[in-house]
């Protein structure tokens, strides 16, 4: 065990290559990229199957493979990394034709992820991804390294990157952190299934529709090239039989949507488990590609809980944890999803992140004007447009029976959107809740606020309404249509909290 510790401390000071099987990984990736780039060629060969001279194609393929193998070997040779202790930098050289030198300052490292793709799984190596706050793309990725080295490197990088005060394990006990403790939360397939069937309907359904439409138009091109046959089909469509079978097709679509949702949840998040590693949380998941993400509680800026009526009944919810990022909208890596956990599990996670369970505190409701403005935008304006269109073109009039349906749906949306929109404040947390069907609850700590913006339209001055935005490094939290004179003292209070806080926000 002592040898692990010793290698963990000094092994990366001298420039070194990846694991030898790294050549295979490089080869597989290069091959994958080549196939992706030249897929039309393969398609062509497949279509002109009979006219192809197999000798030439075989020779060509062999040549290409040999070239790729050489390239992979050169890539492996030129891929060298080490840690420069004196300058506190991680340095990586790579590239065959275009040489590249990546330098990452150890103090700027935010996250170190250890992942394993399908290819890497086959040869039992791991990828180490080093992330900094500055850019959305991972700065430096090592593609093939043994598990022990990966863990040691990660330990080493984070050890230096982290402030000394965060270090829980004293230096002599490094191997304890290397051998990860058993997970304290493992999300069962059952929970994943529950979340899978109760979320993302619209997304999956549109995906499916798009997919079916592509198939339909392709099939149509091939089979029904003649115009008259297509019109005959359309005649048939008007008959009752076709209507019934359309309903059946629709039913199948719905079922397939559910199934796709299930798979989209269960494959990427398979065996999602969370372990404690010192002060941090290690999240591992994935069936085909396994992923590991380290979450450091003090880097967390915003925690979001998402749940809906059905999920509440089944006691599951989703969590999104946002870490500091220069641009939260484009930087996918900065937000970490916990796909499904029970109420008690979410409480455990919240307690680990915040040190306590967030209480809701004083409740602020948006002003009733929020409803009025929604009615104006989503009911009054569309109605006026419809009336105008119907007056100009009586054809539109025959769709009038859709109007009450529209009104009912939109009124329900407006009502629930208002009813669910709340801001809860106490001296340790600010909690914003919003949503129509899926209810989002965003939790931040006041001392992690970066700046505050208030906004008041001139027509809202007399009725004392204003919007307030709390800017955090994990995105903005905006509460609109607040009672302005009620929210302003809170702004002063939050500023006081930020300005008197000695805690590091990151």
């Amino acid at each position, binding site marked *: 065990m002592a040898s692990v510790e010793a290698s963990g401390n000094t092994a990366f000071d001298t420039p070194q290559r990846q694991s030898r099987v790294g050549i295979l990984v490089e080869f597989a990736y290069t091959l994958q990229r080549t196939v992706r780039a030249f897929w039309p060629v393969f398609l062509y060969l497949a279509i002109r199957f009979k006219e192809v001279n197999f000798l030439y194609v075989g020779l060509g393929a062999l040549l290409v493979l040999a070239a790729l193998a050489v390239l992979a070997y050169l890539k492996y040779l030129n891929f060298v990394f080490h840690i420069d202790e004196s300058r506190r930098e991680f340095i990586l050289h790579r590239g065959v034709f275009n040489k590249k030198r990546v330098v990452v300052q150890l103090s700027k490292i935010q996250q170190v992820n250890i992942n394993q793709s399908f290819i890497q799984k086959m040869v039992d190596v791991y990828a180490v991804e080093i992330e900094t706050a500055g850019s959305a793309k991972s700065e430096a990725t090592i593609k093939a390294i043994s598990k022990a080295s990966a863990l040691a490197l990660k330990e080493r990088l984070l050890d230096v990157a982290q402030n000394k005060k965060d270090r829980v394990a004293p230096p002599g006990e490094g191997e304890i952190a290397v051998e990860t403790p058993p997970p304290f939360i493992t999300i069962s397939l059952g929970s994943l299934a529950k979340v899978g069937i109760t979320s993302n309907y619209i997304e999956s359904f549109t995906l499916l529709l798009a997919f079916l439409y592509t198939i339909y138009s392709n099939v149509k091109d091939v089979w029904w090239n003649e115009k008259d046959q297509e019109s005959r089909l359309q005649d048939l469509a008007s008959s009752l039989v076709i209507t019934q079978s359309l309903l059946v097709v629709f039913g199948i679509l719905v079922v397939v949507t559910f199934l796709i949702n299930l798979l989209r949840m269960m494959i990427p998040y398979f065996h999602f488990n969370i372990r404690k590693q010192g002060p941090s949380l290690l999240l591992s998941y994935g069936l085909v590609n396994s992923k590991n993400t380290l979450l450091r509680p003090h880097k967390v800026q915003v925690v979001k809980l998402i749940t809906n009526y059905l999920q509440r009944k089944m006691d599951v919810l989703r969590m999104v944890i946002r870490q500091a990022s*220069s641009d939260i909208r484009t930087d996918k890596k900065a937000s970490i999803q916990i796909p499904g956990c029970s109420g008690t599990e979410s409480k455990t996670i919240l307690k680990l992140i915040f040190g306590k369970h967030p209480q809701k505190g004083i409740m602020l409701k948006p002003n009733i004007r929020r409803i009025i403005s929604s009615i104006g935008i989503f009911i009054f304006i569309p109605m006026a447009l419809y009336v105008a269109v119907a007056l100009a073109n009586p054809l539109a009039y025959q769709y009038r029976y859709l109007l009450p349906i529209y009104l009912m749906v939109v009124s329900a949306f407006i009502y629930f959107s208002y009813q669910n929109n709340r801001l809860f404040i106490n*001296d340790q947390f600010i909690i914003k809740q919003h949503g129509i069907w899926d209810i989002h609850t965003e939790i931040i700590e006041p001392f992690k606020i970066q*700046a505050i913006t208030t906004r*008041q339209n001139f027509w809202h001055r007399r009725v004392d309404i204003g919007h307030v935005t709390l800017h955090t490094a994990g995105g903005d939290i905006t509460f609109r249509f607040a009672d302005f004179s009620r929210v302003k*003292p809170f702004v002063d209070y939050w500023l*006081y909290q930020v300005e008197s806080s000695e805690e590091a926000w990151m």
Partner: protein
Amino acid sequence: MDHFTNDMLDASSLPKHEEVQITPIHPSYWNVIVFNFGIIFLLFGTALATIVFSASNLRPYAWYLLVAYILWMGSVFVVQRIAFRKRGYALRQRDLIYRRGVLATITTIIPFNRIQHVALNEGFLSRYYGLAQLQLFTAGGASSDIRISGLVKDEAERMRELIMRQIADEETEQSGNGIQ
């Protein structure tokens, strides 16, 4: 996190950001705005004139287009004037307040201990009037960054130094905590 377990303060005893005296932008900066506006007015005007005189079917409407263009630019000018008059900032002991907006009054408050870095920019024309632009960046992303144009250069320099000193103090304090 123990030092925040005290009860909620009486908010009325805290300094109110609303009641702070807002310093307007230096009047000379209006000249800079007018100059920039003038350039844009001429550029667009020339472009429009070229299009009108090269397309023969537009030529009969040349006068209408001219009037429309002047009305449009005139309203832009008025909006610029209102925006200029509503712009202002206030420097407090621990934060900076920046207020602006035409239809809405937008107030952004950035605490000094959350500023990532400060930039001082000088435009070509601003330099002639001895003015500068102060840019403040936080980790809150682009939506929370502010830039205040039309500050007297010395004043801007002083503000920058004050903020930089605050940031430096903050950092030594934090690393001091870290060693314990």
